[in-house]
């Protein structure tokens, strides 16, 4: 049986790749189609995973339909950009959270460094 973390990931992947919102049953079938120990997977497990994802703000639930349908809040690309912005942004306490490779180098410095390296190369 896959861990909840792995399931969360598979569910998010399915929702991100899907053009329209999915029900828990759709998701269970899709997960089964992926082939990983699917027979043991109950719809209630999928619902648990979805509830967790909803709590984390990653998934939205459409309550107007029965059964409820679920969709990803924002695209995979948006989330990736968000993560990278967090990594690149220079908020006050960010560097305590993450350590960046280019910590403390400004755009101007990058440009002048490039010029210096280019001149070395061509010399």
């Amino acid at each position, binding site marked *: 049986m896959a861990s909840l973390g792995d399931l969360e990931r598979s569910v998010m992947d399915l929702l991100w790749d899907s053009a329209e919102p999915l029900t828990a049953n759709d998701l269970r079938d899709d997960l089964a189609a992926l082939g990983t120990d699917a027979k043991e997977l109950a719809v209630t497990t999928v619902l648990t995973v979805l509830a967790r994802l909803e709590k984390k703000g990653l998934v939205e639930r459409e309550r107007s339909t029965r059964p409820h349908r679920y969709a990803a809040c924002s695209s995979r690309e948006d989330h*990736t950009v968000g993560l990278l912005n967090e990594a690149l942004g220079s908020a006050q306490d960010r560097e305590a959270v993450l350590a960046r490779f280019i910590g403390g180098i400004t755009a101007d410095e990058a440009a002048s460094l490039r010029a210096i*390296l280019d001149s070395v190369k061509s010399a």
Partner: protein
Amino acid sequence: MLLTSYFLAALAIALAWPTPLALSKAKWITRAPVQAVLLWQAIALGGGLSMIGSMLVWGLTPLGDNLISALHGGWRLLMGDPGVQYPGVVHLFALSTAFLFGFHLVLTLIRAAWRTSRQRAKHRQLLLLLSNPSETRPNTLVIDHDMPVAYCVPGISNSVTVLSRGLLTQLTPEEQQAVITHERSHLDQRHDLLILAFTAWNEALPWLPTSKLALEAVRQLIEMLADDRALERVNRQTLLKAIVTVATAAAVEESTSANNSANAQLVGMPGGEVSSRRLQRLLSPENSLNRPSRILVLTSTVLLLACPTGLLIAPTLLSWN
């Protein structure tokens, strides 16, 4: 006791203002980043100790000749022993200030640590959904994005290095080695704890401009430390090329994204003069600091910590009789 408290107060003032100012301008720090980082820690710790210690010792003066007897006197006073002389409002005020200040420092540190670990957990959670483990490197995740990015998320047992696909395609294997060794050394040497402590110090004492100086200086120094580790594996040219590729991409990204990132840049990277020192020392290498000077720096570091600690334990060391 009285003399000791005056001495500690003088030390606190020296460590709060002129010393950090001088150290932030010192030229030698790029030649001995390890010793410089240690000295900054001693200044912050020694400064805090002597600040609290001076008030504590002064407040306890009427109660005894040394800290032990004074604390004993204080205890008897609290127990309602009529034989003990009441210390007076001013002394009580100094004592409460010392305790409040100590609590304030500790609480700020705890709050900062809690906030940081929560943000990290949140970041890690999203990371697990969006990245794949590297096939070739342990404890490394690869994010699917064209921009060359490398960073690490520190943790007690779950530290992880994050690389973007762009980094793996745009950098040569040697340059990747430079980036990864740099990031690993941030994790191995637990630089995040250092930054956490100085961030908390800066938050606890926002009215003290030198706490900001210290944070900036330590940020730069840890980059130098990590660069030095990377240089053990690759040459300068390779490291510089890796830096310029990653930094240029990040700069373009920042200038094209929303205008609040311009603000963010101002907040996070002040002092162009200081920040470029990391690059200057890579472009024109300097010899590391000679042995006597290094020993001198280390001795001052030890003294800065030993003096206030020793005087707190035995305030009578400094007395006329």
